[in-house]
C-alpha cells in the first residue's frame, strides 16, 4: 500500500512481462490437451498407414468416414449434453425412432421423411430436458428411462418388430444418404457441417457460453443469472435432433427397412467418443472437435482390426477393448502432463 500511486503499473508488470514465458508454455500444454484425441488419432492412423497396406486406400478411408458419420453426428449433440454436465443415454433409441419414422413418413414425400422424425425427436428431447430442469431429476435416470421408453415406442409403432417400410425412391431424400460430393458421401459432408455449426454454437454464441458455464458449476451459473433451465433443456433437444439427423441419413442411405432394434448401444459409443475427445464427463470442459476425433478413433481402430488381421469375432472384441484401453491411457498420460492442480 506504500506503493499506491503505481499500483496499476505494478499490476501490469506482474502479469505482463515475467509470466510471459509461462503463458506461452502453458498454452502449448493446453493445446496438447485440447488435441489429445487428435494426436492419438494421428498416431493410430500413421501406424495404420505403415502397418496395414489396405488401410490407406482412398476407398477404405472414404468408407471409414462414411461409416463414422452417423455416430459422429450423434456425438456432436452428445458433446453439448456432456459439456453441460449431463448425459444422454437415450440417443440410440431416439436415433431408432428417427430411422423408423423417416421410413414410414417417406411414403408422403421427402419433406415428410425429414420433418416428421425431426419433430418427433425434438419432442423426445424437450420432454427429457423438461424432466431434468423442471422436475429436477438426474439426467442419467431421465435419459435411461428415455432409452427404454423410446425403444418401447419404436417397438410399438413397428408392431413389436421390424415392420419398417422401405423408402419409395424419392430423389431428394435418397441423395442425402447415397449422394456424393467430390467422391465423398453426403453424410460425411453433413457431419462436417454439423460439427462446424456445433463448434460455432459452442464457442461463438452466448448460448454456448452458458452451456459451458452450467457444466462447470450449475448452481454458480444460476447465481450468475444465466438462463440455466432454458439452456439445459435446449441441450437435450439438440442431442435428440442430432440423433434424428443421423437417423434420417441412415434411412436415406439404406433405403429404409431397418430392424426396430437399430441403434442399440449407440449411446455408449457416442459417450465414449465424446469422453475420449477430451470432454470431462463432469461437465464444463470440452471440445467438440475432440469428439469428432474420438469417433474417428473408435472407427479407425475397428477398421484397422478388420483390415489388419483376420480374427474371429471374440478375439476381435478382446483386441478392440485392449486397443481402446491403450489409446485412452496414452491420451490420459498426454493430458495429465499439463500439471498438478
Amino acid at each position, binding site marked *: 500500500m506504500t506503493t499506491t500511486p503505481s499500483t496499476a503499473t505494478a499490476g501490469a508488470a506482474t502479469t505482463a512481462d515475467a509470466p510471459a514465458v509461462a503463458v506461452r508454455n502453458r498454452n502449448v500444454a493446453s493445446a496438447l490437451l485440447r488435441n489429445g484425441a487428435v494426436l492419438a488419432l494421428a498416431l493410430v492412423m500413421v501406424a495404420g498407414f505403415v502397418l496395414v497396406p489396405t488401410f490407406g486406400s482412398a476407398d477404405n478411408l472414404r468408407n471409414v468416414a462414411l461409416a463414422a458419420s452417423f455416430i459422429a453426428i450423434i456425438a456432436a449433440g452428445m458433446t453439448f449434453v456432456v459439456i453441460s454436465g449431463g448425459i444422454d*443415454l437415450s440417443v440410440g433409441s431416439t436415433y431408432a425412432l428417427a430411422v423408423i419414422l423417416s421410413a414410414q413418413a417417406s411414403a408422403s414425400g421427402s419433406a415428410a421423411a425429414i420433418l416428421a422424425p425431426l419433430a418427433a425427436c425434438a419432442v423426445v428431447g424437450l420432454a427429457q430436458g423438461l*424432466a431434468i430442469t423442471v*422436475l*429436477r*431429476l*438426474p439426467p*442419467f*435416470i*431421465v435419459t*435411461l*428411462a*428415455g*432409452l*427404454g*421408453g423410446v*425403444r*418401447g*415406442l*419404436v*417397438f*410399438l409403432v413397428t408392431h*413389436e418388430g421390424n415392420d419398417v417400410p422401405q423408402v419409395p425412391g424419392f430423389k431428394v431424400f435418397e441423395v442425402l444418404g447415397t449422394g456424393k460430393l467430390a467422391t465423398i458421401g453426403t453424410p460425411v459432408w453433413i457431419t462436417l457441417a454439423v460439427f462446424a455449426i456445433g463448434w460455432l454454437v459452442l464457442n461463438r454464441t452466448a448460448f454456448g457460453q452458458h452451456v459451458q458455464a452450467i457444466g462447470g458449476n450449475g448452481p454458480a451459473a444460476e447465481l450468475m443469472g444465466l438462463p440455466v433451465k432454458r439452456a439445459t433443456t435446449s441441450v437435450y433437444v439438440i442431442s435428440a435432433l442430432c440423433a434424428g439427423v443421423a437417423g434420417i441419413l441412415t434411412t436415406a442411405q439404406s433405403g429404409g427397412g431397418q430392424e426396430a432394434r437399430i441403434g442399440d448401444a449407440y449411446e*455408449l459409443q457416442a*459417450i*465414449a467418443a465424446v*469422453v*475420449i475427445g477430451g470432454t*470431462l*464427463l463432469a461437465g464444463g470442459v470440452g471440445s467438440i472437435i475432440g469428439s469428432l476425433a474420438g469417433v474417428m478413433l473408435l472407427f479407425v481402430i475397428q477398421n484397422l482390426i478388420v483390415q489388419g488381421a483376420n480374427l*474371429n*469375432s*471374440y*478375439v*476381435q*472384441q*478382446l*483386441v*478392440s*477393448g*485392449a486397443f*481402446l*484401453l491403450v489409446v*485412452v*491411457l496414452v491420451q*490420459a*498420460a498426454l*493430458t*495429465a502432463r499439463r500439471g498438478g*492442480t
Partner: protein
Amino acid sequence: MSTTTTPTTDERTTAAPPPTPWSSRIGVRGGDWGRWVRERGVYLALVVLVLVNVVATPNFLTLGTLQLYAVQTATVIIVSLGMALVIGTGGVDLSVGATMAVAAAVMARLFSPSDGGGSPLALAIVVALVAGTLVGVVNGLVVAVGRVQPIVATLAMLVGGRGLALVFTGGALVEMFHPFFTTVRTAQVLTIPAIFWLAILLAVVLAVVVRRTAFGFRVLAIGGNLPASRLAGVPVRRTLVGVYAVSGFLAAVAGLIVTMRLRAADPSYVGLNIELTAITAVVVGGSLLTGGKVRVLGTVAGAVLIQLLENTLTAQNVTDSIARIIEALIIIAAVFIQRPSRSAR
C-alpha cells in the same frame, strides 16, 4: 431501531443444542412429511408395487413365488452393491456384466471336463473370484493411476472383458454339472433361499464398511470432493483400486451364481446390460450419481424394486413395447418421489 436484548455467551456456542430455535430441528424434522417421504421414496414405491402384485398377480403371495423372486433378485442386489460403492466415489463401473462373464468363463474353463479343465470345483470357484477381482483391480488402476475417466475405462473393459471371456470358452456356452450347483439352487435357511441370504450378508457387510470403516469414510470423501480428499490425506489411488476391486469381486460372485443356476457358463449373455440395471438400482435407492453418498439399504431396495418390476411386467404378460414404456415411467416416478428438496429455495 435499537439493540435487542443480548443473549448470554453460552447460548451462542452451539455444539450442544442450545435452547434456541436451532434445537427444535429434530422435532420439526419429524413433522416434515415431504422430507420423510423423500428419504423413503424407494421403499414407498416398493410397497406400492408389492400391493399391486398382491392384487393383480396370480399366486404372488405364495412362498414359492416369493422364494423365486428372492433368488432372482439376489444377483442384481450383489452387483448393485459393488456399483453403489463405485458410484459413491463419483465413478461408474460399466464392466460389471463383462466381469460376470469373465468369472463364469474362468470357472467353466477350469472346471468343465469338456474344455480340458477338470479342476476341483472349489479351485475353479476361487480362481474365478480372483479373476473377477483382478478385472476390478485393472479398472481401478486405469482410473486411479492412469487417470482415465471411469466411464471410458470401464467401457473398454466392457468390450474387452467379454472378449476375454469368449476367448476362454472358445466362444461357446459351456454346460456344467455338479451336485453343489443343485445345493446352491435349492438350499434354504429358515425357508429363505441361501442365495438371498448371501446377498443380504454382503449388503450388511457393505453397510458396515460404508458406515464404520475408514475405507468407507474415504470412499464418500473421494466422491464428495476428490481434490479436497487428497489434501486431507486420503490415499486416493489405493482407495479407488479397492473400490473397483470390490465391484469386480461382487460381480464375479453374481456371475458364478447365475452360472450355477443356469448349469451353464454363457459368456456372451451372462450379465448383459446388467450395468444399467445396477446403476438404476443405486440411484433409485437414493445414492447420488455424482458420488459422496452411498445408501446400502436403499440400493438393496432399488434392486428389489427393479427386479420385481420386471417380474411383474412378465407375470402380467405385458408386451415388450408397453413393458419398456411402463418401466421407464415407473423409474421416473420412483426417482421423482425422492428428488432433492427444494426447501432451500
